[in-house]
């Protein structure tokens, strides 16, 4: 009903779940400092590896830090990194992909040569290399992962543009007298939106995992600051004694991925005029 009032199509169940999960994540990320019951860095050695209790709702980690508070603060870090990285990779990837696909010729060949060279390296290896240059910081991770994932976006967008530029409505736009730029922005780019949206939501998942992997390797968000990834990696030695300190961040990552993917599907449907019947 609400969606209808805003001119959006009625929500399907999946889209609703996606919105709820992502909305909750954003709320937690924004209001984290006020929601968290404890300081995420405060040590309490008495509570070391404790299970859930009244004092620590989700238990405590190997240094007795409150797990709930760390997860809340970690959401802030992880969500921001994933979001910024995806925006970075998709925006630059789309610009490069559209230019290469639409202009063709030498522009295309040179751009794609560089792109394919980047694509030849495994994403994580590439990110590790960049991290060595930028240093282990939040912005460093964003740029490194962004560059590592950009080539994928370039490939997908270029492929879509190549198929769309052959369609007759693009030729029709030329016959009308539109310039190349207008044609590109008005007719080609909007028709690439569906694959871009799908890619963006999938990429969100990869980035959360990659950030965890980087943190796991010690190149991510430097401890003691919490991110879901480094919580996962630092909790690993205690998996037998206190499984909750590794299960809970893992669960957070999984639920976030699920939510983002559901939301992505719903957004793609909203943007598709064919779904609005």
């Amino acid at each position, binding site marked *: 009903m609400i969606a209808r009032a805003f001119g959006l199509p009625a929500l399907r169940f999946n889209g609703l779940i996606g919105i709820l999960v992502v909305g909750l994540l954003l709320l937690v990320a924004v209001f984290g400092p006020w929601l968290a019951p404890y300081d995420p860095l405060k040590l309490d050695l008495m509570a070391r590896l404790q299970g859930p209790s009244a004092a620590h709702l989700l238990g405590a980690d190997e240094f007795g830090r409150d797990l709930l508070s760390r997860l809340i603060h970690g959401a802030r870090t992880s969500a921001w990194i994933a979001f910024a990285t995806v925006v970075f990779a998709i925006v630059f990837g789309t610009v490069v992909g559209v230019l290469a696909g639409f202009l063709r010729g030498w522009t295309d060949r040179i751009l794609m040569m560089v792109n394919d060279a980047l694509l030849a390296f495994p994403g994580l290896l590439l990110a590790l290399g960049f991290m060595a240059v930028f240093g282990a910081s939040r912005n460093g991770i964003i740029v490194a992962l962004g560059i590592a994932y950009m080539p994928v976006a370039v490939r997908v967008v270029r492929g879509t543009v190549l198929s769309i530029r052959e*369609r*007759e*409505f693009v*030729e*029709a*736009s*030329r*016959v*009308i*007298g*539109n*310039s190349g730029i207008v044609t590109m922005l*008005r*007719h080609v780019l*909007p*028709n690439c*939106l569906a694959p871009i949206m799908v890619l963006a939501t999938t990429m969100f998942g990869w980035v959360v995992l990659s950030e965890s992997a980087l943190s796991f390797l010690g190149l991510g968000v430097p401890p003691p600051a919490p991110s879901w990834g480094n919580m996962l990696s630092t909790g690993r030695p205690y998996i037998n004694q206190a499984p909750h300190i590794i299960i809970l961040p893992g669960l957070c990552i999984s639920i976030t991925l699920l939510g983002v993917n559901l939301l992505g599907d719903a957004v793609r449907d909203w943007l598709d*005029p*064919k779904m*609005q*019947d």
Partner: protein
Amino acid sequence: MAGIENVLSVENLSVRMGQAGLTVVDGLDFSLPAGEMLALVGESGSGKTMAARSVLGLLPPPFVATPESRIRFRGTDLVSAPPETLRQIRGAGIGMVFQEPMVSLNPAMTIGRQMAEGLALHRKLGKAEIRDMSLAMLERIRIQDPARCLAAFPHEFSGGMRQRIMLASVMLLKPALLIADEPTTALDTLIQRDVLDLMVELTQENNTAVLLISHDLGMVAHYVRNVVVMHKGRAVEQGDSRAVLHAPKHDYTRRLVDALPRRSAGGSRSGGAPAEPLIELKDVVIDYPGRARLFGRAAGKRAVHGVDLAINRGETLALVGASGSGKTTLGRAIVGLVTPSGGTMAFRGAPLAYRRDAGGRALRQAIQIVFQDPYSSLDPRQRIAGIVGEPLKLDPALDRARRQARVAEVFAEVGLAPELADRFPHQLSGGQRQRVAIARAIVSRPAFVVADEPVSALDMTVQKQILKLFRDLQARYGFACLFVSHDLGAVEQVADRVAVMENGRIVETGTRDDVFDRPQHAYTRRLLDAAMLLDRTFAGADGAGGPRLLSGAAGS
């Protein structure tokens, strides 16, 4: 009627979307004796394809045949048959040929393997035997070098060849029934006839019954005795095809017959005013570049070889030819989508060049195009009003209100309801979409419009409306038109003059009546013959309709 052996008998066939949804085929009855032909005729959405597919049990979900339906193939009821039985019948008992040979042949498999597939599945035969049978069949359908053909891939053949190969591989199994769903709709007139002749030959040799699905009543009447006319899922008329064509009983059939092309009354319009060339082409040559190689390019392909052509103010020149003759390329060159590699093009006496200045922009507005497929020529993400109004955005003299007024005006001119303005292209019918494409072309009041096969993707009755709209608009605004088409029926209705193109050259030019009644070139005669064959059966249909379409060419 158990006495006569019917290969196929269909009783009370209904097809629904789901158990209780929309009914797309409603209580259809027909029967088909061994070795005979029957045609289901109707326009898109009439349910003819659904009816044919339900015979094979190949209805796309969620469509299902209702349990009351009876489809008997040699005594077996196919509606209640288990999937295993259906699989045995498909191919061996009932063969099917689809509309698009491009799509129905697997592009990644050689012809030989595709032909062998059915034989290996239904007959216990050795590899050598299968190969011999395939070779004999290819020879039978007069394919040059059958051995090479077996090793070739589908893309190496033209559309007509592919359809013949498709037909051959289906007939290899000697099915008792062949279902042909618009087998020649995607093909040129000349090739259409070859393929249909071949189909009749092959099926008669094997005593195979044919269920032909088509939208083209004229063609059907030439080949098939019994016809069922379908409209909105119901059989509205059935019986002898000539009787149906000559004395249609049902209203819908009458409309269908009326929509068959015939010459517009009155002579050519040109001749009154002194001919004043609007567009002049001199010795135009167009090459397609070859594939880029590591160094340089492979040799290109010459699509147009030195064409001279003049189109006068306000007249319609039809450019006729088979696919691959270069007619579309020539039209695209005039609107600037292809750059000629030689010759000159002039518009109103000045060289035709689309520069990026005010002159070039004015030229863009003066010369427009209507594409063949109205679905792919409209941006799926724009609303109809936006599409039609887009050319006006380039005119700085028009503000928003003026543009909207102009769009509303054009909507009325092309017969689009105002409430369609907020729709998206996919929400419109094919005919409405083509009206939108025409509206976009004429909104900037062009002096010249290239119409590239504008009606060949449309149903017959819609074709007729669109052609009439085109003529009316032309009479009102006096724009000249290059009407590119392989469909002589459509050409006849709109053309003042006709130019015939073969292999990149113009072989004949003349007034419509001259070209149609007194063709000079052998190729023109062949084109006319192929078209006429499909229409001659229809000669007596409208006794009062003035000189009959194409019939004058019979003697020459």
